[in-house]
Structures are given as C-alpha cells and as structure tokens.
C-alpha cells in the first residue's frame, strides 16, 4: 500500500511537470500580452521596459526554469492584468466553483440513484421508460443549451430565479458560501441543476444497469425467499452491491464537474474559476491560465488517487499495485 502510494505520487509529479511544460510551451505561443497591457501610444523604450518587467525578454527555457523554481515554492507568477499572485487569484475564486460543483454532484446523486433504481427494477413500465428517455435527453443536450433554456423559462418568463451572480453569501469557516441564505440558494438553483444534469443522466444509467443485473443474482432471490421486505432487499442487498462502481464514477466525475463548470459559470455569470479562465484567455493573462491548469490538474490527480484508495477499501477483491497480488 505504501509502496503503491509512493509510486503513484512519483507518477503524479511526472504528469504535473509534463503538463506544466506542454501548457507553458502552448501559452508561450499565444500573442504578445505586452501589446494589450501597454498604452497603444507608448514608445519602443516603454514597451521594452514593460516586457522586461514581466520577464518576457528572457529566453524561453529560462522563463520556464524561473517558473518551475517559483512553482516549487508555491509561486505561480503574477497576473499580468490584476498584478496580484495568480495562485491567490484562483484560490480566491475556487470556493465558488467548488460550492457549485459539490451542490451539483449532491443533486445528481440524490436524484440519480433513486431514479436509476426505479428504472432498473421496472424497466418496461411507463415510468421506467420515461426516466430513460429523460436521461438520454440529459446526455445529448449541450450544457450551455440547457442553461439557456433554464434562463429563458425561469428568469425571463416566470421571473422566479435570478439569472446571474452568487447572491448573498455568508462566511462559513472563513469561506463565503451561498447555500446558507435564501437569496444564495435562489442564485444557486439553476446553475447547479444545469451542471448536475449530465451527471444525473450518467448516474441513472449506471444505477439502472447495476440494478437490472443485481436483481437476477442468487443472493437477491435468497433474500426474497427468506421473506425479507421489498424495501430491505432493494435498500440493503441490491444497493450495497451496485454501489461500488457508482462510488468510483462519482469520485472520478467530480473532477470533470469542475471542468464543466467553465461553461455553466460563463452562462450564469457565476464568479468562479471557470469564468476567470475564460476572461484570462481573452485577455492573454498567461500566468493565470497556467496557474489554473496546474491547480485543476493537481486537483484531478488528487481526486483520482483518493478514489483508487477508497475503491480498494470498499471492494476487498481489489488489490492496489502489482506487488500486493503476489501474496
């Protein structure tokens, strides 16, 4: 287990450095940020001064080396546009994104698993078919399209829900959150549902497939034969056995929810990291783009690692690493 963790850690660092290099090469090729930052009337001397101030006059590899040295000590450079540390800028916006992602995931789980169970236990009923049709829709509709329709219905025509921003926030352990106030909840409802829809459809399909297989197994027949109630058979025997792949997918999808939040945040003007990324791309704010990617990739790697470990704890048949299987 420890050897596995160490090897995984080594691999993760390798992927991280590789990603940082690729991104750095790529971002280095995007236009010249000095053009955007300096007054258009500025003369050549002022341009050169600005270029030197940003460290952009050095050769590429030296810029990368300076960046790596900084990154090792937690300094991912300063935003060209805001002139504050890029990492700080992202960490400041991260709680909004995480709140959105977590609420979306919770919505997907709370609705997806029960709906999937119903569809799996009664696959040919009207309700079962309806749920599946809904999940196919949820799969094929582009996220931004659904967001648009939500705004059209709930903000423009019904006027029930606000279409942008986070609303009123309160501090929870020093972090501003929206879900504790009524106004915040109203602001959260549409973006969270929008982001949840795809994962909801995925969970419905997974749960349905698992349930359809599980009800045919001998242990379910045995539990029924013992005279256990339907709710106990489904809630304990079936659910426990189909939960393993579901937990894995939930874990793995958490990362992609954060990535997809880029789209949702842009539609609903949710002040999170995704919106920051799009703004930074438009303003050629290189350090923020690089820092965003590194933070997201680190988050991804960490989530994958935790999921792998949890998986081995949930399912005793899974052994991590090849060395363990020798025993």
């Amino acid at each position, binding site marked *: 287990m420890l050897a596995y963790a160490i090897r995984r850690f080594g691999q993760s660092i390798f*992927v991280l450095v590789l990603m940082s290099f690729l*991104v750095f090469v*790529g*971002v280095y*090729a*995007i236009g010249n940020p000095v053009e955007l930052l300096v007054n258009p009337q500025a003369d050549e001397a002022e341009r050169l001064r600005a270029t030197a101030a940003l460290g952009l006059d050095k050769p590429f590899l030296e810029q990368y080396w300076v960046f790596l040295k900084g990154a090792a000590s937690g300094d991912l450079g300063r935003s060209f546009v805001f002139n504050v540390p890029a990492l700080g800028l992202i960490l400041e916006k991260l709680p909004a994104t995480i709140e959105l992602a977590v609420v979306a995931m919770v919505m997907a789980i709370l609705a997806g698993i029960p709906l999937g169970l119903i569809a799996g236990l009664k696959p040919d009923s009207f309700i079962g078919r309806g749920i599946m049709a809904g999940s*196919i829709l949820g*799969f*094929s*509709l*582009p*996220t*931004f*399209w659904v967001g*648009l*329709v939500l*705004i*059209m219905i709930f*903000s*423009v025509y019904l006027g029930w829900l606000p*279409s942008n921003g986070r609303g009123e926030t309160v501090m929870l352990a020093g972090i501003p959150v929206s879900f504790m106030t009524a106004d915040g909840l109203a602001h959260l409802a549409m973006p969270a549902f929008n982001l949840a829809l795809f994962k909801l459809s995925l969970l419905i399909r997974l749960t349905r497939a698992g349930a359809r297989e599980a009800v045919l197994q001998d242990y379910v027949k045995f539990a029924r034969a013992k005279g256990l109630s339907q709710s106990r058979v489904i809630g304990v025997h079936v659910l426990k056995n189909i939960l393993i792949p579901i937990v894995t997918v939930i874990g793995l999808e958490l*990362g*992609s929810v954060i*990535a*997809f939040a*880029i*789209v949702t945040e*842009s*539609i609903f003007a949710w002040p999170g990291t995704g919106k920051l*990324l*799009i703004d930074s*791309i*438009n303003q050629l704010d290189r350090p923020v*783009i690089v820092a965003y*990617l590194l933070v*997201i*990739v680190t988050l*991804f790697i960490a989530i*994958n690692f935790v999921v792998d470990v949890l998986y081995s704890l949930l399912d005793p048949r899974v052994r991590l690493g090849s060395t363990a299987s020798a025993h």
Partner: protein
Amino acid sequence: MSYSSDGPWARFRADFAESRLAMIGLALLTMVIVIGLLAPVISPQNPYDLAQLDVMDSKLAPGENSAEGKTYWLGTDDQGRDMLSGIFYGLRISLGVGIASTVLALAAGLVLGLVAAYFGGWVDTLIMRIVDIQLSFPAILIALILLAVLGQGVDKIVIALVTVQWAYYARTVRSAALVERQKEYIEAARVLALKQGRIVFRHLLPNCLPPLIVVATVQVAHAIALEATLSFLGLGLPITEPSLGLLISNGFQYLLSGKYWISFYPGLALLLTIMAINLVADQLRDVLNPRLRK
C-alpha cells in the same frame, strides 16, 4: 422475420428499419444534411452579404415583415439578418466541422489503434499511455486550452476536435483488434506469408469496423455539441463564419430582454441535429452488435 437472399446490406436495412424512432431520426438527419448542403440555394438571403442587410430590420420578431414586405419567418438578429438564413448557413458550418473532425480523428485513431494492437510491446505501451493520460482529462478542458493557444478559425477548431477525439477511436480499435488478431483467419494470412501492411489493412481492419462505426456516429454529435459550446464561449469560430453555437451566443445578450428568437431557433436547430444523430447511432449500435441479433 424472414431474410431474403439479398445479402448483408438488405439485412442491415431491414434491421435498421425495425425501429420507427430510428427512421424518424434518419429522416431528420437527411433533411438537416440536405439543408446544410443546399444552404446557399434555399436561403431567403445571404446572411453574410452586408449589402443585403438592413439595420432598420434588426431584432424583428418571428413572422414580422420588413419595410419592403419581406417576411422574416424566424425573425431577425441585431444586425437585421434573417434568422432562417442564418440557421441554414450555421447548420452547414456546424455539420461540416463535426463531420470533418470526426473523419480525421477516426483516421488517426484507426491507424494508431491498429498499430498498437498489431505490434504490441513498447509501441502499444507508448500509444495507450498517451490515450490514458488524455482520456483522464475532460475533452472540453483540452479543447479549450488548445483553442486558447491556436486562436480562432475553422481549421483551428477542427485541429482541437481531432486532438480530443482520436483517443476514443484508438482505444476502440485496439480492443477490437486484440480480439480479432487471435482468430484463425489472421493466422492463415500469416501462414500465407502476406505482407504485414496487407494483413493489417485488408484482413484486420474490416473486421474491426462495426464498433468503430457506432462510436463515430455518436462522436459526430459530440463534436457538434463541443464545437457549439466552444463557439458559445467565444473560443471557436470567428464571427465571419458563424456556426449554430455562435448564433446562439450572439442572441444570448438579448435573451434577458425577451427577444428569445435570436438564440432559441438556432438552439432548436442544434438540438434537432444532435437528437437525430443520436437516434440513428442508437439503432446502429443495436443492429451492428451481433450479441443482440435475434
């Protein structure tokens, strides 16, 4: 059901036609493709010829008439552009980008997946490791970064879509090819001392195609949706070549003031296109899967 002796194509057609929903999807898809192909012929106006636009006609509601008595069935946008014509041209671009990127990604993934499966060893490890790393990141994130680096343009978005899609095909082909290459006909071809290229492309490849066709149809829909999303975010196509996504994005700012049609109708066209492709793909999956054959 009775099959005549018309061969595999007739059987394939008969199997496909069994689902009414799939036939509706196919009809819809055919219609959308024909509209895309004929857009310059059937559109009431060329929406990107500025001489044909009249700013006086801007933001007219669906069904309203212009000063000269032209009827805009789906309304006009902020520049007085006929939305119906805009959608026809947009479909053309969306479909073109989706199909082109899928074909290119299919070709790249096909070759790399076959090579990985046929040669095995370090070639296989290298290719599949790249596939694994790439697939562990969401497509939208990779495409977004690529476009941030490459800039706007039809060619750029095709490059980005190919880059995010090839890995799916490589993985699908490889797993199909690994099963196929164990079979006797490959062994027979080897015994006949055929050239490796011939074995891979004439014997192995045709037998790996069915799962690929299914993945490719679904991926066309994904590519179109992804392109629309990226264009919506302002990172895909330039305003001179507006796809459906860009039309939707353009109308988004007027949505809150109740001028829904500028975004809604392009959105509806996008939705119908994606649904049609998915319906066809679903039926193809069932028809091409030998395990489901009755």
